[in-house]
């Protein structure tokens, strides 16, 4: 594993780690940085921690504060209070503030002074709060989408790089039968309205059953050209621009939420990881330590887990870092087009898209744009650094 210390030794690595950890802190403590509720307050002689209480409510452990009575905290006469730096939540439309207020314009709502540090949008939502809360969404979408694409990429990379064209033997008739039934299942799905999940599970069960049984069947065997199949599959996949697939998929799904978005982006990005892993495995497989591992009786699984993956990891990390940057950009661009998450969910891209409606509100373009820029540059710097470390250690 490449240590953080090694990354810190590079100029680009310092920038990358700095920016990424800055955004990570923001994402983790978003509720404490931008919130309309006070972090700590004293009301009628009692001490409250409304932000922490919110977590309790979210988990269903704690009830509402009854005295609030649908009023906001900021309308109460608090004896003592510590508010977050940004006194807005991202989604909340502030009735008191006007739309398109300039950065660092402040106003009184009768109880206290509030400030739009980075201005507000067309319906009076605070940009700073949006960016802070959006950080969490952007990072988690990118992280989980990469996790999904890593899992898919690992499976296909190992299948094509390690097993390749000449190690999986199959009964010819079992293979032909398999193909027939798979086509049958998907025919049922498209014409007889089987559910998508059922079809997927049936395919998976069928494939694993055939893989399990067919070596035991004997009969006419042939080598299943896994590498060939997977590589051609990736080429077909790659020949369609990712954004078009994304648009098509989002058009099918009626109400995209954060999870569907994660899954879709994850499915789009696995091919690079699979390719790099395949190339690495092909190179590593020729090493004598793999032959040694075979000679001491390691199973294929042990060879992959103990020897191949740890040695392939440095190059994979580079790809993952670049992929992270790509995912953030992809998410921002679909939010910008307004087809991703629903309008209430504020992300960097959705704030940016507001700028299309009013060109004079430059802050709507500059600040979320800068956040995207910084994050993408940081990821690319991280990728560069990892690549450099990898090259030097070879």
């Amino acid at each position, binding site marked *: 594993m490449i240590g953080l210390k090694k990354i810190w030794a590079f100029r680009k690595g310092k920038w990358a780690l700095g920016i990424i950890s800055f955004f990570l802190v923001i994402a983790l403590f978003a509720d404490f940085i931008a919130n309309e509720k006070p972090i700590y307050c004293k009301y009628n002689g009692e001490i409250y921690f409304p932000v922490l209480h919110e977590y309790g409510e979210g988990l269903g452990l704690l009830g509402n504060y009854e005295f609030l009575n649908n009023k906001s905290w900021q309308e109460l006469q608090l004896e003592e209070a510590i508010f977050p730096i940004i006194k807005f939540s991202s989604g909340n439309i502030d009735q008191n503030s006007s739309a398109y207020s300039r950065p660092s314009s402040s106003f009184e709502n009768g109880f206290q002074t509030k400030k739009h540090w980075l201005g507000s949008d067309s319906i009076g939502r605070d940009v700073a709060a949006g960016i802070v809360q959006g950080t969490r969404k952007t990072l988690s979408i990118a992280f989980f989408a990469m996790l999904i694409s890593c899992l898919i990429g690992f499976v296909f990379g190992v299948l094509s790089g390690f097993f390749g064209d000449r190690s999986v033997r199959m009964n010819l008739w079992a293979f032909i039968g398999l193909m027939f039934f798979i086509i049958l299942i998907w025919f049922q799905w498209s014409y007889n309205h089987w559910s998508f999940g059922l079809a997927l599970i049936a395919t998976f069960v069928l494939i694993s059953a055939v893989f399990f049984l067919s070596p035991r069947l004997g009969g006419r065997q042939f080598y299943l050209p896994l590498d060939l199949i997977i590589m051609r599959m990736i080429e077909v996949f790659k020949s369609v621009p990712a954004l078009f697939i994304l648009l098509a998929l989002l058009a099918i799904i009626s109400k995209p939420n954060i999870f569907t978005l994660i899954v879709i982006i994850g499915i789009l990005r696995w091919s690079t990881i699979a390719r790099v892993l395949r190339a690495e495995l092909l190179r590593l497989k020729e*090493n*004598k*330590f793999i*032959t*040694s*591992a*075979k*000679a*001491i*009786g*390691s*199973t294929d699984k*042990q060879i992959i887990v*103990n*020897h191949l993956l*740890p*040695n392939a990891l440095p190059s994979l990390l580079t790809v993952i870092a670049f992929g992270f940057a790509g995912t953030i950009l992809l998410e921002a661009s679909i939010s910008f087009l307004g087809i991703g998450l629903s309008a209430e969910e504020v992300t960097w891209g959705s704030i940016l898209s507001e700028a299309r409606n009013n060109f004079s509100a430059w802050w709507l373009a500059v600040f979320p744009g800068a956040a995207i820029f910084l994050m993408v540059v940081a990821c690319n710097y991280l990728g560069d650094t990892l690549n450099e470390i990898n090259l030097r250690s070879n």
Partner: protein
Amino acid sequence: MLSILQLIESPGEVKGGSAIYCDQDQCTDLLSLSEKQIASYRGNKIGMIYQQALAAFNPVQKIGRQLTEAIKTHNAKSAENKNHLRNLLSKVEIKNPDRVIDSYSHQLSGGQLQRCMIAMAIINSPNILIADEPTTGLDVITQKSVLQLLHSLKSKLNMSMIFISHDLGVIAEMADSVVVMKDGVIVERGKTLDIFANPKSNYTKALLLARPNITSKSKRLPTFDDLENDVDINSDLFKPIELQSILERQKVLLNNSNLLEVRDLSKSYVVEKGLFGKPSSQVQAVKNINLDLKCGEVLGIVGESGSGKSTLASLILNLESADKGSVSFKGQNIFLLDKKEMRTLRKDIQIIFQDVGGALDPKMKTSSSIDIALRIHYPSMDKKQRRDKIISLLKQVGLTEKHVDRYPHELSGGERQRVCIARAISLQPQLLVCDECVSALDVSVQAQILNLLLDLRDDLDLSMIFISHDLSVINFMCDRILIMKSGKIVEQGYPQDILQNPQEEYTRKLLAAIPSF
């Protein structure tokens, strides 16, 4: 040596000193010259040839073009003249220069490439030729012809030569005077004959003594450490063994049962495939090999590179599948075993490779490399037992507890090979296959490893198949020898018979090519 021509790469640098080049009363310090000035010396007055000829040529340019390029930089006029090129190549005794001119580097053999590199170095008849291990990658027969070529060129062109080598036999053949270096310091210098007859420093003595002898066989080889620790090198341990006791051992072995039987083993590799995937050209790496190995015997397999020795080894271990034939271990045909049975059997047959750098996972500490082997075959051992076992194994192969938590790049070549051996014997195998396991090590480390292997043979009752291209090493290690050439067994028998009285032409050629002192 690179420092003389200012070819040291950053971060290395020359820390003072001087290298003075004298040409007809005119002396210059090469180290004080600027980059531009030194360029006129490189290749022009001082030529250089390297160890890896294949790496020294540009793989995407034809040899002829690269040679022309070299001529051009020093002498523009004659460059375009193809005859000039042909003369040059015939000077280095290349038989069909036209073919070589039109070839890429990967199409030529190691010997031919080495000749081309020599041709490049002598284009401008330099006064000094620096040869950095020029024959190390070559087999003995090619080595001999390259050495002869260098010898004749030296006298023809009246050059001086700096010949760098780890092989004392080669040095003895080539050099007039010798400088012995260790850890960057000159240990000893003198006339070749003096040094070989009467070495002064312990290191030189060790180098000379540690090389196994082709004519006689001793119980152990003396090492540098033996000399440093004042072990009596005249004791019986290091004296040649009487022929009588060799014969006795061979007789005992003859009555043992067969551990391994190889019958009709063949393997070929497809080089080229036709349009529909039918192989159109293939190389027969192993051809109808039959051999028996007795329990407790050490069988030597000799042959030049490409003779199929390593393929034979990986077939015996079932690491590759054979085309034809069978390998029986204790009467059981291992090609008929299923995956699970084969994995259990792997415990009994172990292998050590030549490539000491590649045989250990670079991301694994010594302890986990061995630990994995133990975990597979002794699942009942707990963590502490395994750790104790690893330490005792490392001690058995001459390493200490401090090597347990080191990564391969923190170990020297000899230490890595010891770790490989420790891993192999951790499974208590009955058969150990050593595939050129000492050829990448220098002579004194080689002696240590060979001693260790012989000790293990006696302690653990190991049978061994010992593959090497070095006949003297084979003579030291083995009870019986097979000589292989292009996939076939050419000759087999006892070392004392084959080495003293070879029957086959090829064996005689192999023996004659060994440099000796």
